[in-house]
Each structure stands twice: as C-alpha cells, then as structure tokens.
C-alpha cells in the first residue's frame, strides 16, 4: 500500500519527467528558429566565427536589405503567392467533391482511399520528368505565371484536402441532404448550399494546409519553374552559393504566412485538425 509520502514522491518524479519532456520538445522546436533568426541579423564575417556565438555580437539588417534589393525576390514572392493560392483553391474544390463522394458511397470510399494513399506512396521524383514533358507539350512549362506548377501542386494537395474534409462530410447526417432533396434541391445545389457551409471550418483548414503545402514545395518547383522561380528554389540557390546571411533572412520571411495562419486561426485550426471535426 502506498503511504502518502511515497505517493508524493512518485508524483514529484512524474512532474519532473513532464517538465523535462516539455523542455526537450520546446528546445527542439525553437532552437533551429533561433539560430536562423540569429544568422539573419549577424554580419557575414561573424557568421563563421569559431566557436560560434550564441548571441550575435554585432547586429545588421544588411541581409534583409540585400534580399529585398534583388529583383527576383519580388516576382518570386508574387509567384509563390499566386501558385499557392490557385493550387489551394483547385485542390480544396476537387478534394471536397472527392471527400463528399467518399462520405456518401462505399464504392467511392474504397476507390478514394486507395487512390489517395496511392498518390501518397508514389515516389514523386518518378513522375517529375514525365510531368515536365506533359507541361511543356501543353505550353505551360516554366511560365512567368507559374500556372503549370499550380496545377502540379493542386494534384499533390488533393489527397490532403480530401482527407481533411472527409470526416466533416461523414459527420453531416444523410437525413439533412435527403430533406433538401425532398424540398426540391438538385444534388449540386445540396452540395453547395448544405454540405459546403456545414463543412466550412474544415474547408478553411484544407485551404490553409494546401496553401502551405504549395508554399514550401521544393522538388517540383525546382524542376517545373527553372527560370521563373518560386521562393523555395530561390532560397536553395542562396544557400548553394554560400550566402548564409541572406538565405537565413529569406527563410525567415518565408515563414511569415505560416506564422500568420497559426496566430490568426490557432485555436480553430487546432480544433479542426484534431477533433475529427465532430460538430
């Protein structure tokens, strides 16, 4: 039998373990961010100081200025925004239709889940070259607008969108759709006026996830937009050429959308991602 003192001791050890685990997770998550931020405001020479400084001894904004001075950056930001937005909208739209079909028909569910996981299991690089050839043959390879890449990203993001939305469509009672049918609504009308509004929280989540997916997708972006670059390949070139400071500055700037999303939608996003969207 546990004496009260012994119970307290166990409680104490557990508490310490909890604190240690939390501290580890916190450090693992924030240390890289800190280092990145430090590099972005450390002068070039100090960057390579040995032993490395935990705190920068001198501060500079030169890296940010140099990043903004490059013309390519502005067009890359706009292109990345455009590609991410368009691909998120397309993927969410098609993903919603797929998810709804999966939620309502066992056949669609079977086909949907197998094709969705199929896409995820496929080594992306295996389809990269054929995809490039297809895009080139329809004339949307490496265009300034980045539409080719947007389509590729949309295709990549459909499984994510569909899986995010599936649970919320399953949660909508079939009777509500049947009531709308009896009231005289067509299937498309039911989808647009009943299902989509009822799944709106998940739709917002799916849009955001797809946006972020495209925003930091690197492989296809490198291949498809060889000269009209988006941000991730641009960052890659900075790193390759050894510009650690500007690369860090650019990397920090790239995080802005993600941070904005988390700050603005934090609680509701967390809810939608974890709750299986039971309403």
């Amino acid at each position, binding site marked *: 039998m546990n004496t009260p003192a012994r119970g307290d001791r166990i409680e104490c050890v557990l508490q310490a373990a909890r604190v240690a685990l939390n501290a580890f997770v916190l450090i693992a998550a924030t240390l890289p961010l800190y280092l990145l931020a430090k590099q972005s405001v450390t002068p070039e020479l100090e960057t390579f100081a040995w032993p490395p400084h935990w705190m920068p001894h001198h501060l500079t904004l030169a890296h940010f200025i140099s990043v903004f001075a490059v013309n390519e950056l502005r067009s890359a930001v706009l292109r990345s925004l455009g590609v991410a937005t368009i691909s998120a909208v397309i993927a969410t739209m098609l993903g919603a239709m797929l998810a709804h079909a999966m939620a309502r028909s066992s056949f669609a569910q079977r086909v949907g889940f197998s094709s969705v996981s199929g896409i995820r299991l496929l080594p992306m690089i295996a389809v990269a070259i054929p995809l490039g050839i297809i895009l080139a043959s329809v004339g949307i390879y490496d265009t300034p607008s980045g539409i080719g890449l947007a389509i590729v990203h949309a295709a990549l993001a459909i499984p994510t969108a569909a899986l995010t939305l599936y649970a919320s469509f399953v949660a909508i*009672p079939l*009777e*509500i759709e*049947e*009531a*709308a*049918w*009896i*009231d*005289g*609504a067509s299937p498309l*009308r039911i989808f647009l006026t*009943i299902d989509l*509004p*009822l799944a*709106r929280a998940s739709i917002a989540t799916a849009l955001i996830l797809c946006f972020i997916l495209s925003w930091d997708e690197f492989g296809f972006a490198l291949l498809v937009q060889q000269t009209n670059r988006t941000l991730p390949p641009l960052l890659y070139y900075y790193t390759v050429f050894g510009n650690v400071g500007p690369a860090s500055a650019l990397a920090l700037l790239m995080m802005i959308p993600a941070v904005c999303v988390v700050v603005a939608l934090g609680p509701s996003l967390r809810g939608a991602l974890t709750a299986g969207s039971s*309403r």
Partner: protein
Amino acid sequence: MADLVLRNLSRSFPSGGGVFDISITVQSGEFLVLLGPSGCGKTTLLRLIAGLEFPDSGEIQIGGVKEAANKTHRESIAMVFQNFALYPHMTLFQNIAFPLRLRHVAREETERRVKESAAKAGLTVDLKRFPRELSGGERQRVALARALVREPEIILMDEALASLDAQLRSSLRLELKEFQRRTGRTFVYVTHDQVEALALADRLVVMRKGRVEQVGGPQEIFDCPQSEFVAAFVGNPPMNVFLAEKASTSGSLTVDGVDFKIKPAEGSPAEIRVGIRPNDLSTEEGQGRGSIEVVVESVQFSGATYIVYAKLGKSPICAELPRRVEVGARLKLFFDTARVHLFDPSTGKRIEPA
C-alpha cells in the same frame, strides 16, 4: 387535392428486408398511419412514397398520374424526418424559406408564406434564431412549417414524435391531428407506437415483415384484429392469447380444462388460439358471460386502473381492473364471449366463432 395510390409495390434489400407487394389507396385529406415493429418495412414504404427509394416493381400514382421510377424529386410531397433534419447553419426563417428559395419565389411573397406557415405550425419563437437554440418541440414545429410552406398535397412523417419526451409527445399529438384537420392535407405517418397510431389515424396500416397485415380504422383494428399478430401488437397491455382445445363433448373451447363457452365454426382446426384483451376481463358477473378462475401473482397500479398479472392454470394472464385485488387471491373473472378473438394457430388468421 390528390389521392395517393400504391400498386403492387415491392422493394427488397440484400439484407433481406424491404416491402413486398403493397397496394394501398390513400384518400386525399386522410391521416394514414403505418404501424409495425422496427424492421417491418414501414420506413422503406414511406421512403418509396417520398422518392428517396425506388421500387423494384409496382407503381405509385399521385392524383392519377404515375410517378417516375427514376430519381426525381416529387413536387406534391413534403416530409418531416425523425430528427427533423433542419439545416443547422440556417436561421429558422431560412430553414422554412429554403423550398421557396429553390423555386425563386419573390421576397415579399416568401416572407408572407414563411410567416403564414410558421403560424399554422404554432411556431411562436423569433425566426432569426438558429435550430440549435430551440427545444425539441419547437424544432418539430419548424420542420412542420418547412414541410407546409410550399403547400404540398401529401406530408410524410417518419417517427416524427419519437425523439421527444412523453408529455410533449402527447400534446404535440393532439396539435398534429388538429393541424391536419385545419390544413386538410393528406398525412402518411410512420410509427411503432400503437398508442400514437390509434390516437392519430383515420386509417391504420399494420405491417409485418414487409407485408400489410391489416388495413382499417383504429376501432376496427382494435376490435376486430384480422390476425394474431395485429391482436398482440395493438393494445396495451397486450392481448392475452392461449392455445385452446375443442372439448370432445360440447365442442366448445377449453384452455387447461377451463371452458370458454365458445364454439368455433364448423371445419376449424382442432386446436385454436383464443385471445382476450385485459380490459375485456372484469369481476362483474353478468348474463351469458363466460368466466374463468385465476390466481393473482402481482398487481401494478397504472393510474386509472390496476393491471393484474395472474395465472390461468399454467398460462399467464393479464387483466385490467378498476379495483385493487390481493396478491395470491383466487379471482373469478368474467368476459363477454363476443369480445373473444379466435385465431388459426398455423396461419395466425382470424376465425369467426359459430
């Protein structure tokens, strides 16, 4: 106004359920109740009428016009679902106006008709509120108002009161009947609750295993059940049914040696099921009445009456009496022989006494 005609309607499911060869004519303005235990096909039949399911064979006519067998919406039919199926993201006004919005009805007209049907359904809450803010009874009214707003000829209801508490259910039952009288619409109402069915119905359809067991007015179903199934299903507490033998000397029926003083018609089987309702048993003696002697085993107070559970020989028997009786007492119960029901034990069908 239009009659609803179901002709040889069949729809079977791989699981074995469904409805088989159903033919019913529902008169315009009639309150028809489909009654049966769960899984008897009453909801399938309602969904066939609604156009949510399609028959394997047979046809549905509304107002003399045959309904298409493919997936098309039926303009003359509205439906109230068991859990009301209100649109949770719309206000009450938007919920009720939804069928009108689909038909591009002008704004003033919509407003007028929504208010009108809300009033008819007895809805008094602010229409700017959302369904989740309402009680079950109010949701029920919203669902009714939405069904009514496009002025359908037939309103279908699927266990529409089942999810409400008992008190609300009985007051809404009254209201619903009144509502139907006032609007003159045809109602087809599905329930497994025989009290509700008897209270609401102009005509009752008792179903079992996908087939119609009996169609008739509530009184007729109660007084003259055409099968043992109907006899046992309708009425609470349920009818007492015993296996009786024909006494060799008199030819009248006996249960465990107790003579019921009833002679079945010539040519009826040697063994017969005998049924008598608990409320047809009484302690009052009378001219030409049959009598049985029972031993009281337990007594339940039901408010107006006492439900007495007793043994007739070895068989359990239930009687509904106005006065309390002692447990363990031997009791002489009398009954009107005209109120005894006879059934064929092999087919379950009613047999008329001689």
